[in-house]
């Protein structure tokens, strides 16, 4: 069976997000060069590549977080369900409600666990206490954190362990029910056990939303993603189904990188 799967052409993709000619500049310096990339719905897309290759910058342009950094210019197009997110009449704040983000270092607010998760809902105007409680529980269950924190929802989120804090940040992002979740090296500060839990969680979440994850860990990319994109020097070198990328890369640079010859 396996050789047959290998020889078949890649499955057609149901596109959730698409970039066309996406370039990002920091002042005069170009960090991302005309990237055309498609993100499949209910898939995990892993972005890999050596440090400084532009993968994080690319990720942050998918929910317009680059807009919050001075001197960043984005050219090209990004669509979510065919709707441009860089159009002249698009509010980046609204885009971020549809495309959530989890950061490299867990960054819970210095508030209670409950208030952390409820933050985005309250920002979106939800006032009803019963509804808030329901949504907070749902998000914490989704993030596989509920059982650990249900008895201390009103204690500070900063009192949790590193892995729990990162899952709290995921719960916080899930609470507003985004369609796409961007993750920027979410496990880089976690120990192996917490990392394993996080990877299980990512695989479960895929059923309900689309995930783009930046990682430096090849095994992680292989374990959690269905498609992998390799970035080098700000350019997209190669993208394809993860299994194929890690067994039969088309580009020499991809093979060199995943086999540990550089990076």
């Amino acid at each position: 069976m396996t050789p047959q799967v290998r020889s078949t052409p890649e499955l057609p993709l149901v596109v959730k997000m698409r970039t066309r000619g996406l370039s990002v500049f920091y002042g005069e310096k170009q960090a991302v060069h005309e990237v055309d990339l498609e993100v499949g719905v209910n898939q995990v897309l892993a972005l890999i590549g050596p440090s400084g290759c532009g993968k994080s910058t690319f990720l942050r342009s998918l929910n317009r977080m680059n807009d919050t950094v001075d001197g960043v210019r984005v050219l090209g197009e990004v669509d979510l369900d065919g709707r441009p997110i860089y159009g002249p009449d698009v509010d980046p704040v609204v885009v971020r409600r549809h495309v959530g983000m989890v950061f490299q270092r867990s960054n819970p607010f210095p508030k209670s666990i409950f208030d952390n998760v409820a933050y985005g809902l309250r920002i979106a105007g939800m006032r009803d206490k019963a509804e808030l409680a329901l949504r907070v529980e749902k998000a914490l269950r989704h993030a596989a954190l509920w059982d650990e924190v249900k008895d201390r929802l009103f204690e500070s989120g900063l009192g949790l362990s590193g892995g729990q804090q990162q899952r709290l940040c995921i719960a916080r992002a899930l609470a507003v029910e985004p369609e796409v979740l961007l993750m920027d090296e979410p496990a880089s500060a976690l120990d192996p056990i917490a990392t394993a839990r996080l990877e299980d969680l990512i695989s479960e979440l895929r059923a309900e939303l689309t995930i783009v994850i930046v990682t430096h860990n090849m095994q992680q990319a292989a374990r959690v993603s269905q498609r992998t994109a390799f970035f080098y020097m700000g350019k997209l070198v190669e993208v394809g189904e993860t299994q194929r990328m890690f067994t039969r890369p088309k580009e020499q640079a991809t093979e060199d990188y995943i086999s540990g010859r550089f990076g």
Partner: protein
Amino acid sequence: MSDATSSTPFVRRDGIFDRILVVGSAGACVALLGMLAMVLLDIVIGGSGRISLEFLTAAPSNGMTEGGIFPAIVGTALLTFLMTIAAVPAGVATAVYLNEYAPTNSTLARVVRVSIANLAGVPSIVFGLFGLGFFVSTLGRAIDVTLFSGELTFARPSLLWAALTLSVLTLPVVVVATEEALRAVPRELRDASLALGATRFETVVRIVLPEALGGILTGAILAVSRGAGEVAPIMFTGAAYFLPQLPSHLNDAFMNLGYHVYVLATQSPDVEKTKPILYGTALVLLMLTFLLNVVAVILRSRTRGKLKPAL
């Protein structure tokens, strides 16, 4: 000497300079403490005997040689309060703009920062003259001409103008302290809030300002306590030598503890009889600013504690 050195190769060569430095710097510390102690002791010993309920609640009488300092306490409190509500919101708003909204290479922000640094270096007597020239003579006159058909109402030294003059003096301190507090808020928290669909304004109000509140309050109180003891800026803009009544309107003149000390020390008809009152007034002023500083220190240590994870 050279014989001794060659016979003991491991001799300490810097010993003598080391000792001079230690003795010198310790001496400087002691001298500093000594001077503070002398100032405090002199005022406490000279003033504590004078302080009584009557001293704190009665008006001066008999050409300032008897009675209390109640009007000066009230005037100082009113002045400080008005100065605070003028300076703190303006200062915090300025710092929020500089730190949260202005682009990093913004010319406006640079000009404002340079102006604030220069404002902080202006001698306080110059603020007094500025207050007289701008607030009293220009703004006050303009108000009188437009609203009171030229009748002298606001174009004279008053509580309002003195408070505004003082607020200009304390503004730089509030701005700098607030900016420092805002800078201490990690960028990750702002990013997290923005990524959840919050606007910049919501992020500032719900995340950044609450997180920086302790630092802002501490800075504000230190600025206020500094302003509360200033005399030069209010000399021409509203402080009075003696008033039979307490101020009841913004455009009334007022008595003030710092100014009262100055008056008692330089304008007294009977130096010997006013001396205890002078000491008492100085002590009350000192305790007032000391109290404000203690509140600031407590606030600061509290917010430090809050930043630690709860557990």
